[in-house]
Structure formats: C-alpha cells, structure tokens
C-alpha cells in the first residue's frame, strides 16, 4: 500500500492538459464515467420530483451561510460541547499538522493498525501515506475506497471513489490482490470484501472517520453512509478519531435534516441513506460497546484564507455531494483522475487552487465550459461558474490578488499584445494606418498562435478592412450620406 503515495504523483494538476488528452483517448474510461453519470443525473431528477426543490435549496444555502457567518463562535461552541461530552478536540493549521496529531494519538495507544471510514479530508492531507511511514497500516473500509486502495490509486469521485473501474477490472484487482476467483458476480465480490474487512475491523486499534456535519449546539458528529463501514469504524475499535474541515460545523441540531435531505438526494438520488450515525460521546460507564476514546481533529488547510473574501467564501458552503461533478460536461468526459487533485470536477476547480496555489492549479478553473450546470444543481446554491471566472481572473493577475499564486497564468506576451491593441484602438489614425499595413502584409502573419490554433486556423487580415469596404459601399449607394467622422472599433459609444 505504499504505492498509495506513488499514485498520487501519477496524476498532477500541472499536467491537466495531457491527462485530459489521454482520458479522452481512452474509450474504457469514457464509457465507465458516461454510464455512471447519466444514471446519477436521472436518479437525482426523479428523487426531487415531488419536492419544492428551490425552497429546500434556499434553506440549505441559508443554513450554510448562517454557519459561516458565525464560524469562529460556532467552532468554540462545538469544542466546548464536545469536550463536555468527553470528545477531545484538536486543531490543525494544515494537513501536515493534522497528520502529526493523528499519528501521535495512534502512537500514544500503541496502535499498529487503523481502519478508516470514508474521509475526503484525510485524502486531502495524504494521511495513509503519513501513517504508513510511521509503521501504522491504514486500511480503507468503504468498499469503493478499499478497491481503489487495493489498486494503488486515489479516488476519482468524492462519493463513488471507484467509479472509474468496471466490474471486470474490479474482479481482476480483487483476484490479484486478495485471491478471490474471477467473476462478474457482484454479490460474490461484495461478500468476499465483507469477510476480508470484518477481520480487519475486529483487529483494528483505531477507527478514523470523516464528518458530514458537526453540530455546535450539542457537540454531535454526524456521518452519512450506506454500507455500515462508518458505523463499524466508529464503534468497534477502542479509539475513534474523526477528522473534518473547519467549515463542516452547523449551528443547531435542527439545521441537520434539511442538509441531510439535500445531500443524499443530490449525491446519489437516494431519499435517504441506509445509515445516519450521530455520535456525541465516547462509551459511557455501563455501555457495552463503542470506543473508549473519541477525538475530533479540526483542519484548516487553506479554509480560513478562503474565508477572508466575500466572494470566495461561498466555496465553503459545500456539503460534498458531488452533484456538480456528476453534471459537469468536462468531468463526465475526462473523469476524476485527470484533475490530478483530491477534489476533482467543478468543486475541485474552485477549492484546490486555495489548497495548492494557482501555480499548480492554474488550468483547473479553465477546465469548464461555463455552461452553468454545476451551479444549477448545487444543493446549497454555490455560484460555481462565477467562482471559476473569478479564479481565472486571479490566475491571469486581474483579480484582487488574494488567492495563493495569483497571476500564475499571466503571460507577458499576452499582456503586451493587449496593451498595444488598447493603444491602437484609442488612437484612430494609428488604428487606420495599422489596419492598412496589416492588410498589405497579411501573408506575413504567423500561421500558429499558440494553443489557440491547435484546433483552429490562424486568422489572416483581409486585404481591405471592413471599415474601408463600408465607406466604399456607402459612397456608391448614398453619395450624400454623411460618414462618421471617426473610425475605430473602440468608439462604439462616447
């Protein structure tokens, strides 16, 4: 499983263009994603059919905004209530610090083996690799995550980690790594995984999980899942460590039902998931099972910097349903690994630049047709297209400059070209002179203009400009008509 860290280097956001090219040329990947995403879109549509979806989205967005408006106070309240319930709370400024906290908690218990529920934050901080390096095995227990881990890969979707693999591929992986027989029988494979993982649940010293909502009012950690591996992880081992981004807090318990309703329906088109698990304390005296120790690790990792800016802040409303990726025409064609980041798709493109900086991720905000599908389906109404545009500007050095790596995509040539155009366009005689010259020497213009001409032919200036043609035409048809005094495209309005 040490290859987990290698695979992280297989795909990088810097190589987005090459990876997209490769994915588009891979019919298997395209078919696997297309089929899955089409199904998810249809299911989501059906499951909301008898709901006042707009009102529910409005409420969801309000709840998230209210939580963010009171964020520092709610985090303190969450901490106080968790501690009062017996849950120890830890804070981490970045992924590395969070990994260290978790490793130290494991070491303090002499833990050698960790079983994990699904947690995107732990992916974001590369927790498994960190624990492996310290001699602690970390095994994923969500079936999709387990398969991806067996295959020495990272998840390609935040809800369905193994969506890029089809049944035959999964059978081959399980056969090679666990000795099961080759089959297309999903029940057989599921049963085999159940047996393999049950042993590990029993043996694990520590269970690590994510958190879907953390309730400040009661100090409660909510977990959403279908498989029961989350319940196993948080109930069987003697210690449970929950890890979450600081934005996952909600103010009151009554805020949970609307968000839960939006999450399950948006994610997989389910009315409800099989389990909704709410944990408020470690095992109390007299109780027969559950962990003796529960810890909560609150991770910042770039979130407090997103929090600074009124516009960027909307990113933190996200409840990680994955609907934006299911509906994105780019994601559905290139798949999740292409992005080379923990969070792929539209949400990844607005979140990862803050975590990794725009130097590494400058292509991601452009990996969108801006068709608006992501913003339309987002259950908490995050204006994703607007944020993509904002980050494109930041990448080009035209935003407020408060995103890490702002200006990374700024090209000196491009800036100089626009500057000269601007000057020409506001100086009519120079403009007329230059268009005349361009017409005369049109054969000399370059046939390649960077990536723009990869799929287009380079434009050639016409021998005679439109302006001159119109003048000639008007002179012929209406000799008395008055011509505009000034020319130049920049003078459309005064």
């Amino acid at each position, binding site marked *: 499983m040490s290859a987990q860290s290698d695979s992280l280097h297989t795909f990088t956001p810097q190589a987005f263009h090459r990876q997209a090219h490769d994915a588009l040329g891979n019919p298997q990947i395209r078919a696997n994603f297309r089929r899955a995403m089409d199904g998810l879109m249809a299911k989501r549509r059906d499951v909301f059919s008898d709901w006042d979806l707009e009102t529910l989205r409005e409420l969801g967005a309000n709840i998230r905004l209210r939580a963010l408006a009171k964020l*520092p106070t709610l985090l303190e309240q969450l901490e106080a209530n968790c501690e009062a319930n017996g849950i120890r709370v830890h804070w981490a400024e970045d992924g590395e*610090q969070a990994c260290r906290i978790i490793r130290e908690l494991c070491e303090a218990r002499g833990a050698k083996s960790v079983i994990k529920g699904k947690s995107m934050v732990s992916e974001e901080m590369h927790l498994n690799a960190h624990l492996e390096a310290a001699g602690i095995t970390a095994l994923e227990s*969500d079936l999709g995550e387990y398969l991806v881990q067996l295959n020495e890969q990272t998840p390609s979707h935040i809800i369905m980690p193994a969506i890029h693999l089809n049944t035959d591929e999964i059978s081959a992986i399980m056969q090679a790594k666990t000795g099961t027989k080759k089959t297309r029988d999903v029940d057989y494979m*599921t049963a085999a995984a159940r047996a393999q993982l049950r042993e590990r649940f029993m043996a694990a010293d520590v269970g690590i999980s994510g958190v879907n909502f953390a309730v400040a009012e*009661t100090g409660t950690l909510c977990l959403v899942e279908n498989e029961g591996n989350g319940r196993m992880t948080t109930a069987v081992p003697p210690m449970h460590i929950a890890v979450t981004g600081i934005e996952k807090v909600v103010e009151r318990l009554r805020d949970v*039902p609307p968000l839960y309703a939006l999450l399950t329906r948006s994610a997989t088109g389910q009315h409800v998931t099989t389990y909704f698990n709410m944990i*408020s304390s470690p095992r109390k005296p007299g109780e027969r099972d559950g962990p003796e120790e529960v810890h909560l690790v609150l991770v910042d990792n770039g979130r407090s*910097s997103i929090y600074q*800016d009124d516009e960027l802040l909307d990113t933190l409303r996200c409840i990680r349903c994955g609907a934006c990726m299911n509906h994105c025409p780019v994601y559905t064609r290139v798949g999740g690994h292409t992005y080379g980041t923990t969070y792929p798709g539209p949400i990844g493109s607005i979140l990862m630049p803050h975590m990794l900086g725009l130097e590494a991720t400058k292509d991601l905000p452009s990996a969108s047709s801006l068709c608006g599908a992501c913003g339309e389906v987002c259950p908490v109404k995050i204006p994703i297209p607007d944020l993509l545009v904002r980050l494109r500007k930041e990448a080009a050095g035209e935003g407020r400059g408060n995103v890490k790596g702002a200006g990374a995509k700024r090209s000196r040539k491009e800036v100089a070209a626009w500057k000269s155009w601007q000057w020409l366009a506001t100086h009519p005689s120079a403009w007329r002179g230059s268009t005349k010259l361009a017409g005369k020497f049109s054969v000399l213009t370059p046939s390649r203009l960077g990536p723009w001409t990869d799929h287009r032919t380079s434009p050639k200036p016409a021998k005679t400009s439109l302006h001159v043609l119109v003048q000639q035409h008007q002179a012929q048809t209406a000799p008395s008509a008055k011509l505009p005094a000034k020319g130049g495209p920049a003078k459309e309005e005064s």
Partner: protein
Amino acid sequence: MSARDTILKRLRERMDGPLTAPESNFAVVTHRGWSGEERLARFEAMITSVHGEVIHVTDSDWTATLADVLNRKSIVRLALGREHPVAWAAREALAGSGIELIDVDRDVESWKREQFERVDAGLTSTRGAIAETGSLWLWPTPDEPRLLSLVPPVHIAVLDADAIEDTFFDVIEAHRWADGMPTNALLISGPSKTADIEQTLAYGVHGPKELVVLVRHTSRKGA
C-alpha cells in the same frame, strides 16, 4: 500562538469584515399533514423500496410472528437484550423453542469474535420511525448496544405503528433531541448496501443483509 488561536484569529479578523446571518424558514421540512394511515403507508412504501421487509403484527401476537420469521430464515442464534419489554417478551416466548438466545449485556471485548461470527440475527426495539424517508430511529442502550443492529447478518426491529412521525425534523423537534443527545443516535433505512461495483446494488456489504421490521399495531377487542 496555538493552531487553535491562529485559526480563530484569522476567522475573526476577516479581511472583508463581519458577515450577517440570513434567517432560516424550516417549513419545507415539516408540516406534511399526513393522517396516521398515510404515515404508515408512506413508511412501508419507502422502507420496502430500499429492501426492508415489513410485517404487520399486533401487540398480542407479535412474538408468534417473530418465531415464524426466525424459523423461515433458519435463524438459530438470536442476540437480544434483557430489560426492554421487547426483549423480555421475546425471551419469554422463545424459551424452549430451540432458538439459542444470546446475551448482549456484556462488554463487546469479551465476545467480539463470537458476535461477528456466530450470531445469525439481532433483535432490537426502536424509538420510532420517519414516514417521509422510511427510517427507523434508535438510541442504543447498555441493554441494546450499538453493534446489535449492525454486526449480525439479519436485523429484526420492532416498531410501534403509532410511533411513526412525518419527518426527521419533526422527530428531532418533538422529542427535543437537542436537550440531551445520547452517545449514539441512529437512523436506519434498510439493510447495509453498496453500489461501488459499477453501480450494481449489493446488500450486506458490512452490516446486515436483511432488515425485517415488525410493525406492531394495538390489538382492538374483537379484531
């Protein structure tokens, strides 16, 4: 400065200044106005749509039905509590039936492997249910611990028909959950499932493969 203080300071000294919180109107998640019958029908339709099995029983004959279910499913080792009236009545009825009754009122450490490998089914009570989503709600206790509804391959849950409410929001509000949460509160909607292998549904991936809900109705005189 500690990580905690640094993070809180950054959040408090926000570049764009303080934020205002919008009002929330929760009407969309409550006030369904269903009758008792509609609630029951809705609950049943929803939980069966996710592979839950519903059997209607009365408070006088339910243990006989339980015995039938165990028989039909060839369950010979049933784990259950002792104190809850549901467990108590089941023990009474099943004594001498040949079904092995397994105590769960002991620390998991002392019988982890036994629980994982030798129990055929777990029987639990429920606190109520939610019509809108077909969910049971449970607050595990020392008498009926958390793993009883999770580890055995079959979970049999007893639900009183008049304990079904419209929505999750209604349950949280009506029972004032916020005033005191238990160690673990649970919603269960169907047996454990996954669609991680090419979107094909498979049951019992980690938890129970089957969920049987005995919905108990108050027996009327002459009925």
